[in-house]
C-alpha cells in the first residue's frame, strides 16, 4: 500500500538527504526551528513584506486545495478560484451583518464545500476530462452571478469588511496580526492536508489518479473519491477565501475571474503538482510573479505565465519543488555519462541524433 502512494509523487529524497533527515535532532529540530522562525517573522518584517507574505499564504492555501483534487487525485479543475471567491463573499457578508467571526469562518468553509459537493456530484459522473470541461464554467458563470446577486455581494462594486485589526493591547500592528492569522489558520490547513494525503484517503486518491479500473477492482469507488477530493478542495478554497478577506478586506466579482482561475492552476503546476511544499511555492509564484511583471510591463503577465508553464512542463514536469532533485540527478549523471559513452542497453546503438528525434513518435505508436 505504501508503495502506491510513492508512485505518483516520487517523494523519496536523494540518498544523501535521507541520511541527514534520519538524524533525530534534524527530524524534530527542523520543524521547531521553522515554527519559531514563522513566529518571529511577522515582528521583524516591514509592512509591505508582511502583506506580501500574507497574500502568499492566502493563495498557497488555495493552491493546496487545488492540489488535493488535481495533484493528488488527478482531476483537472479549472474552478478553484470560484470557491475562494465564494468563501470571501460569505466572509464579507457575514462580517457586514455583524455575525460572530467564528460562525463566519465556519460558514466560509461550509458553503463552498456544499457548492463543491453539488458540482462534483454531477461532474464526476462524466469522468475523465469532463470535470475540467465543467469546472471551467464556474468562474465564467460565477462572475455575472456575483454581479447579479447584488443585495448579497454589492454587485460590481464588491464588498469590503474590516474585521482583522489587531486587538487592543496586543501591541501588534494590523499587518502583523493579519499575518499571524494567515500563518495560524493556513498552517493548520497545511498540516491537516498533509496528514490527509499521507493517510488512507490519500492512498485512495493516488490509486484513483493512477488507474480508475484498478481502483474499482480494489473496492475503491472512483466516483466517490473524486467527489470527496473535489469537496475537500472546495472547502480549502473556502478557507482561502476567508483568509483573503483577512488580508485584502475587499472582494468583488473580479476576485473569481476566469483569468485568476487559470493563474491558480498555472501556479499549482509550476510549484509542483501533488506536493505540499509545491503548494507553498505555487502561492509564492501566484503572488510574486505578477508583482514582478507589473513592475516591468503589466501586459506581459499572461504571456510570461503561459511561457513559464510550458517551460516547466517541458523541462521540469514535477514543478519547482522537484528542482533540487532534478539538479542532483543531473550532477550525478554527467560525470558517469562522460566516462562511458555507451548507454546501458546495447540496442540503442542506432545512428545518433536522427533516432533520438524519432523516439517520441515510436513511443507514441508503441502505446497506441
Amino acid at each position: 500500500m505504501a508503495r502506491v502512494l510513492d508512485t505518483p509523487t516520487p517523494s523519496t529524497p536523494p540518498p544523501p538527504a535521507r541520511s541527514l533527515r534520519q538524524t533525530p535532532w534534524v527530524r524534530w529540530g527542523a520543524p521547531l526551528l521553522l515554527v519559531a522562525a514563522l513566529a518571529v517573522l511577522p515582528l521583524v518584517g516591514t509592512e509591505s513584506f508582511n502583506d506580501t507574505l500574507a497574500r502568499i499564504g492566502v493563495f498557497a492555501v488555495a493552491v493546496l486545495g487545488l492540489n488535493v483534487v488535481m495533484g493528488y487525485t488527478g482531476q483537472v479543475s479549472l474552478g478553484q478560484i470560484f470557491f475562494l471567491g465564494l468563501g470571501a463573499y460569505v466572509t464579507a457578508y457575514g462580517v457586514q451583518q455583524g455575525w460572530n467571526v467564528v460562525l463566519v469562518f465556519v460558514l466560509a468553509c461550509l458553503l463552498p464545500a456544499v457548492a463543491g459537493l453539488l458540482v462534483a456530484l454531477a461532474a464526476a459522473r462524466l469522468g475523465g476530462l469532463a470535470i475540467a470541461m465543467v469546472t471551467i464554467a464556474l468562474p465564467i458563470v460565477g462572475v455575472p452571478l456575483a454581479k447579479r446577486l447584488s443585495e448579497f455581494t454589492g454587485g460590481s462594486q464588491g464588498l469590503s469588511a474590516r474585521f482583522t485589526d489587531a486587538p487592543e493591547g496586543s501591541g501588534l500592528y494590523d499587518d502583523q496580526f493579519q499575518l499571524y492569522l494567515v500563518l495560524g489558520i493556513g498552517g493548520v490547513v497545511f498540516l491537516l492536508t498533509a496528514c490527509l494525503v499521507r493517510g488512507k484517503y490519500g492512498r485512495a486518491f493516488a490509486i484513483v489518479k493512477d488507474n480508475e479500473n484498478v481502483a474499482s477492482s480494489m473496492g475503491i469507488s472512483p466516483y466517490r473519491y473524486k467527489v470527496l477530493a473535489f469537496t475537500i478542495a472546495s472547502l480549502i478554497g473556502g478557507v482561502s477565501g476567508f483568509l483573503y478577506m483577512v488580508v485584502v478586506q475587499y472582494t468583488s466579482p473580479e476576485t473569481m475571474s476566469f483569468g485568476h482561475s487559470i493563474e491558480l492552476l498555472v501556479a499549482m503546476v509550476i510549484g509542483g503538482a501533488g506536493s505540499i511544499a509545491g503548494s507553498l511555492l505555487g502561492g509564492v509564484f501566484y503572488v510574486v510573479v505578477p508583482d514582478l511583471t507589473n513592475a516591468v510591463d503589466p501586459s506581459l503577465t499572461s504571456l510570461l505565465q503561459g511561457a513559464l508553464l510550458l517551460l516547466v512542463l517541458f523541462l521540469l514536469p514535477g514543478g519547482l519543488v522537484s528542482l533540487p532533485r532534478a539538479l542532483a540527478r543531473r550532477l550525478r549523471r554527467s560525470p558517469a555519462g562522460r566516462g562511458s559513452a555507451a548507454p546501458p542497453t546495447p540496442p540503442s546503438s542506432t545512428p545518433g541524433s536522427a533516432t533520438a528525434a524519432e523516439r517520441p513518435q515510436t513511443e507514441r505508436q508503441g502505446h497506441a
Partner: protein
Amino acid sequence: MEKFVQLVVDGLSTGSVYAALALAIVLVHSATGLINFAQGGLAVLAAYVAWVLTNQGLPVGLAIVAAILVSFVLGAVVERYLIRRFERGDPDTAVVVTIGLLTLVTGVAGWIWGYNNQQFPSLFPLDTVSLLGVSVSIRSLGTTAVIVVAMVLLQVLFVRTKIGLALRAVAINPQSAAFSGLPVGRLLMVGWGLAAALGAVAGTLVAPQLTLTPGMLDNALVYALAAVILGGLTSPVGVVVAAWIIGVLENLAAVYVGFIGFDLKVAVPFILIFVVLLVRPQGLFGRKTVVRV
C-alpha cells in the same frame, strides 16, 4: 412572434460559432486524444491576424481567408513542436499543456495588440431581410451559412478524399495506420491545422459582434465545451446539434426568463448539462463511455 424568430435565428448564428469551435475540439480529440482548451485562444489569434490585414487595406473576405491559412499552419506547428511530446502520455498533463498554450496565446495577443476592445469589420451588411414575413439580420443568416458550408466541406474531405480517409485511419489506430505507410506525424499536424482553421472561421465571423479582445472567445469556449459534453465526444453531428440547441436556448432564456437575462445566459448550457447528466450520462448522442476512460 417576430422577436421570437429573430431570437431563434440569432441563436442559430451564435450556436454555429460554438459548433465550429466544438467541432474543432472534437477533431483534435479524435486525432490526438486530448481536449484543447486553447482552441478558442488560437481562434482569437486568427481574428487578430485578419484584423491587422484589414487595417492594411485588405478586403475583409480576403483577410479572413488569409487568417484561416495562417491558422492552419499555426495549428500544425503547435501539434508538432508542443503537443506531440505529451500525446498518449498522461491526458491530464496534456490538458494542462493546452491551458498553458491558452495563457500564452492570450498573453501574446494582449502584449502585441493590448487588452482594449477593437472594432472588427463585418463580412456581412448589418441590414435585415424579410424571411417568411419576419425580418432577420443578414449577419446572423450569413454567419450560419458560412459555418454550415465549412462543416459540409470538412465532412466531404473526411468521407470523399484520400487524405480524409488517412486522417480517420490515424485517429482510429495510429500504429496500424503506419504499417500501411501513412505518415502519422504529418497527418496529426494536418488534423490540428484543420481544427485551427475551423476555429479561425468561427473567430473571424463572431469578432464584429463581440468586438476583438484577447479574451473574446473565453465564453464561446465554455459554450463549445458544453456542446461537446452534451453532444458526446465521438459524435460530430451530435455536437453541432447540441451547439445549436445551446445557442437558441440561451437566447430565448435571456429574453423570456427574467432571472437569467443577458448577463447570466452563460449559465444556460450548464443548467442543461446538469439536467442531461441526471438523465443520460453518456451525452445526448454519444455512445457510452464517450469521454476518455
